[in-house]
Every structure is written in C-alpha cells, then in structure tokens.
C-alpha cells in the first residue's frame, strides 16, 4: 500500500470578518470540513472558482495558517506537532506570480541558498555547490547566481522559485497556479520541468489551478472544491470522462479547448458565486444547479464514495431516482 503523505480529516478554517463597528462579527468558513488524503507520488489537483478555499487549504497544509478545527497529518504526524524546520524540509510551496515571489533586493544565489541557511548549513562552499546543482536541475545557467530577479524573465523567475522550493529536497510541493501568470510558450516549459522533476526526485505535488487543460495534463487525481468543501474527487481519467457532480460538469463544460469547430459552451450556471459569509442552506451549490431538487435547498448532501470516486450530491443518494 502506498505511503500516506497527507491525511486531512474534517479540516475547517474560518476567519472572523468585522462588518464595521456596530454590526458585530461574522464567521467566514473558507474551508469547511474537508477530508483529503494524498499518497506518495501523486499529483493531486485542487480546482474550483476563486473564493472556493483552495488556496486556504493549501496554506494550512503548508503550516502557514492554523486550522480552526480538524486535524492534518503530515507523513503520519500531526502538522501542529511538526517542528518548523522539519515542516519546511518536508513541504514547500511554489507561488503563482514569479514577480512577487522573489525578493527584488536579493541575488538569485542568496534566494536559492536561503532555505539551506535557515536549516543551519553553515558551510559556504557546500551551500553554493548545492544551489548551483539545483539551478542546473531546473534549467538555470550558473552565471545567473549573482543576478537579481529584475534581470530575469518570467519563466526564469519561476524556475528560481522552483529551485528555492526544491533545494532542500522536500517530499511534497504545493504549486499554487504555477503557470497562470506566464505566457503560453513559457507555461509549457514550466509544466515539462515540473513533470521531469517529479520523476527525478520522486515528488508528490498538490497543484492548485483553474486551468483544467493544465490539470488534465499533469494531475493524477483531481479534487473539485466549491464554497469550502470538496464536492467531488476522483482520478483524472474518471473525473474528465465521467464527472458526476453537476458543478464538475459545468466546470468541465466551461473549458475552452482550442477547437475552431466548436461553439462557446453554455454551462447553464447562474451568474453569481454565492457570498461565502452567507452560504446557501442545504447543498451550497443548489442555487446554481440545473439538477436541483426541493431537498437540495434544505438538506446538505452526504458524501458517497464509490471506490476512489467521491461525490457529494443528492443525485447519488441511495434511493434517489
């Protein structure tokens, strides 16, 4: 049996929103009771619209945000008990915007060497050697060691960000929209690189993306999030061939493959994404759902797992139609 890298149980993260001095405070449940497991070597994609909680979930996995309730286990150990430096050695992020993820005042060399410095590697020579090895691995020429970020193109910057994440050889990498700030021709290079590195270093990826074409290309399993919950999760082939949740179907319908013979799809979703401070009752998707039934407005659906295919929708309740 494959090794469990991440085991999240009923994880919730809520923020307190102040609505002005006299209107009191409200809870925003950015992530609301998520169960998620990730095995070694998997590429798990988190997809969903903006505000669905995918970035918040990723931040909790990285230890950057505390969970309000529930537990996250990282390699079998509760994440809150993992010492900071050990956590940093195990799981690392890659951010969306390579223009904001590199400190403009530091050289490429010192950016890549920082994780080693923090881990207490004092030997300058070995640090430099390892930084250069990593640069080579991600396709950066060593002469950029002393360059500053503003001297690099977007693609190169993203390579630096990848090098920084990988220099201490973590086991899990969380990529938050790793290619969406990049041009098409650069995007493909970064995707190829991520794929190669995964094979080479036996990495586990968690990829957050709204680009389903990219997800289909790189992920082995996909989790669809809506309003803080995972509403469907399945391996990539199953999800793309046999999407069950109406939201997943709408999402897949919205993908614009570059085929001039096809029209613009009509995904039949209502215009507005609900306000997460004031989520709909019952199934939170029901106001936009084409298959909504009376029950959906009052009762939240229970999840149903069929093998590895999990879906949260009343359509698949026992005894439904």
């Amino acid at each position, binding site marked *: 049996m494959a090794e469990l890298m991440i085991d999240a149980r009923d994880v919730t993260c809520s923020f307190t929103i102040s609505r002005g001095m006299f209107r009191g405070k409200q809870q925003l449940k950015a992530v609301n009771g998520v169960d998620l497991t990730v095995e070694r070597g998997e590429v798990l994609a988190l997809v969903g*619209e*903006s505000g669905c909680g995918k970035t918040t979930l990723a931040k909790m996995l990285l230890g950057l945000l505390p969970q309000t309730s529930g537990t996250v286990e990282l390699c079998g150990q509760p994440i809150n008990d993992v010492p900071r430096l050990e956590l940093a050695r195990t799981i690392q992020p890659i951010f969306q915007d390579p223009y904001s993820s590199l400190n403009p005042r530091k050289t490429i060399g010192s950016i890549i060497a920082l994780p080693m410095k923090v881990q207490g590697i004092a030997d300058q020579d070995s640090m430099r050697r390892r930084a250069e090895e990593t640069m080579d691995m991600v396709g950066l020429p060593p002469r950029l060691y002393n360059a500053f970020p503003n001297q690099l*193109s977007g693609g190169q910057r993203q390579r630096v960000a990848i090098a920084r994440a990988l220099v201490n050889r973590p086991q899990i990498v969380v990529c938050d929209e790793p290619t969406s700030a990049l*041009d*098409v*021709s*650069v*995007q*493909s*290079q970064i*995707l*190829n690189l991520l*794929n190669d590195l995964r094979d080479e270093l036996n990495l586990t990826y968690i990829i957050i993306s*709204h*680009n*389903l*074409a*990219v997800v*289909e*290309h*790189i992920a082995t399993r996909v989790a669809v999030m809506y309003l803080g919950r995972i509403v469907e999760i399945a391996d*990539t082939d199953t999800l*793309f061939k046999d999407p069950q949740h109406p939201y997943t179907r*709408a*999402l897949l*319908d*919205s*993908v*614009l*493959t*570059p*085929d*001039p*013979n*096809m*029209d*613009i*799809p*009509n*995904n039949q*979703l209502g*215009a*507005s*994404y609900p306000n997460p401070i004031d989520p709909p009752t019952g199934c939170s998707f029901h106001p936009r759902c084409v298959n909504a039934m009376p029950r959906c407005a009052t009762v939240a659906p229970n999840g149903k797992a069929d093998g590895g295919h999990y879906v949260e929708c009343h359509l698949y309740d026992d005894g439904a139609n």
Partner: protein
Amino acid sequence: MSNRVLDVENLTVDIPLATGILHAVDGVNLHVDRGETLCIVGESGCGKSLTSLALMDLLPTKAVRKIEKLELSGTSILGYSEREMSDVRGNKMGMIFQEPMTSLNPAFTIGNQMIETLLRHRNLSNDAARDLAKLMLEKVGITAAEQRLGQYPHQLSGGLRQRVMIAMTLLCEPELIIADEPTTALDVTIQAQILLLLKELQNEFDMGLVLITHDLGVVARIATRVAVMYAGQIVEEGTAKQIFENPLHPYTRGLMRCIPVPGKTKRGAPLGSIPGMVPSLIGDFTGCRFADRCELTSDICRQSDVSLRDPNVKAQAYRCIHGIEMLAKGEVA
C-alpha cells in the same frame, strides 16, 4: 453600403525611451466587417493591447502613433480632435477592458453612470434613459435590473461588473466593440458565460468585434478571423479554421504545440515549447523578428524585413520567407 466597420492601414506605435525608440507596433493592417469577430492573439509585449488603444486614440501620452488610414464605417476619423474622438468612442466604438473596475466610476451607482452616458450621447428624457438602461441590463443577463441600477460597482462580483460594462458599451449601439482581454480576470465558468453573451449580442446588434486575448481556447471558439502578433507585427492572419487547423508561420505552429489539449495531448508527455525569447524592440531591427527562435532560420531570414504575404490567395497571410511546403516540413522537424 459596405459592410466594413473598421479599416486600418499601416499602424505604427513608437515609444521613445531613454535607451532608444521602442517600436512597439510596426505596420499593422486590420479590417473588421459587420458581424465579424477579429481576434488579435499574442504573448505579453507583442503589441496587441497598444494596437487596440491606438485604434481608440487612447495611447499613453509618451507613445507616438503613426497611421495611414483609419476608417470607421467608411468615414476617416484620422484628423478628429479629442472632442470628436470622445464622441466616437462613446457612440460608434465601444471598449471593454480586462478589469471593469478601472472603467466604472466607484463613486456613482450603475444606474447613474448608464443614464449619464445615454443623456450625453443621445437625445433622451431622463425616464426613457432609465428604462433603456434597465432593458440593457436585462439584455446582458442581469436579474433584478431595477435594483442593480441603484448599486455601486464595488457591490457587484467580477462577472457582474463585466456584464454591466458590456451593457454600458452597448447603450449607444456602437458599430464596433474593442474588447481587451475581457475575460482574463474571470473564472472559467464566468468566462464562458461572458463570451457567450458577447457573441449573442454581436449577432443581435450586427456589430464588428475586435477581441484581444492571449488565450488560444477563447480565440478558437469565438473568432471569425485571427491575427497572430509577435514582436509588434502581425505574423499570420487567416480564418480561425485556417489558423488552428493549418497554421503556417513557425511561431503560430509553436504556440499550438505549447498548449495541453484534454483528450489530445498525452498526460505527462512533454509539451512543445518555443526556445529563446522575444527580441528587444528598441532601436532598428532588420530581418525576421522570429529568426532567433525559429528552427527554419537561415541567413536570408536575417538579411531583410519579411512582408506579410498570401501566396495561395486563400486569405491566409503569413510573414515568413519560406514556402508553404517548407513550413509543412518544419512541423515534422
């Protein structure tokens, strides 16, 4: 009466910088007919956004526009004063930007802004203007239009704002809409809805549409004709079918290989890429601008400028010295 809404010849935009003149847009010709959608596609810095701003005469003050012909429905608007242009912009040409928040005034309600636009450009009573504004909001798929008129832009979601923006653009029934990355800031689900709306409205009002985007998926689904821009020039132009099914220019071909297509590209298989990067456009440049990144480059590519040509007269022009046979072989290589 001719169907041509927009006719542009030899548009050039130069930006003087401390280090020299940046030739951001270089000799662009464009034309759009009624009911037609022209997509200008290219990567960041290729000059597609400046092209659209140049058409509206909204370039940053530093930029210098040179243009031989700029006709809107057969009337030249080249020598128009700022005042006349602003009339044209509201009335005959509409513009939709990537971030609607920047073009909506946050201090006024949606209704206020729509009615004001109507009163300025059209001879209407206040009530008639309000009714028309409401009608237009309903037309772009906004429910509870009456209430929305009283809301401020920040109270709306990104998708709704873009709909309001489109409604405002449509108020004066323009002949041409220029949309610069109208869906880039939106979620995929909303993107599909907005594009669908644009296309339906375009048919209904029989407008010309110039859509600027970097997203090939959007282009394939909405375009009638496509112009691919690279380093300030149009490098290939043709119908959507031609561009996507039989791209000729090595850059267009390269782009097509870069994008993963569900069901077509094998999972995890390496995607194509275009090595190298866009040349600096500061100062004079001779030869093909793609020469440094092209696998078919030979010495002649760098010797003289390459013109956009259409050897087979199939309305698919490309900017490359190589013949079609040679380009087809490049695909294999």
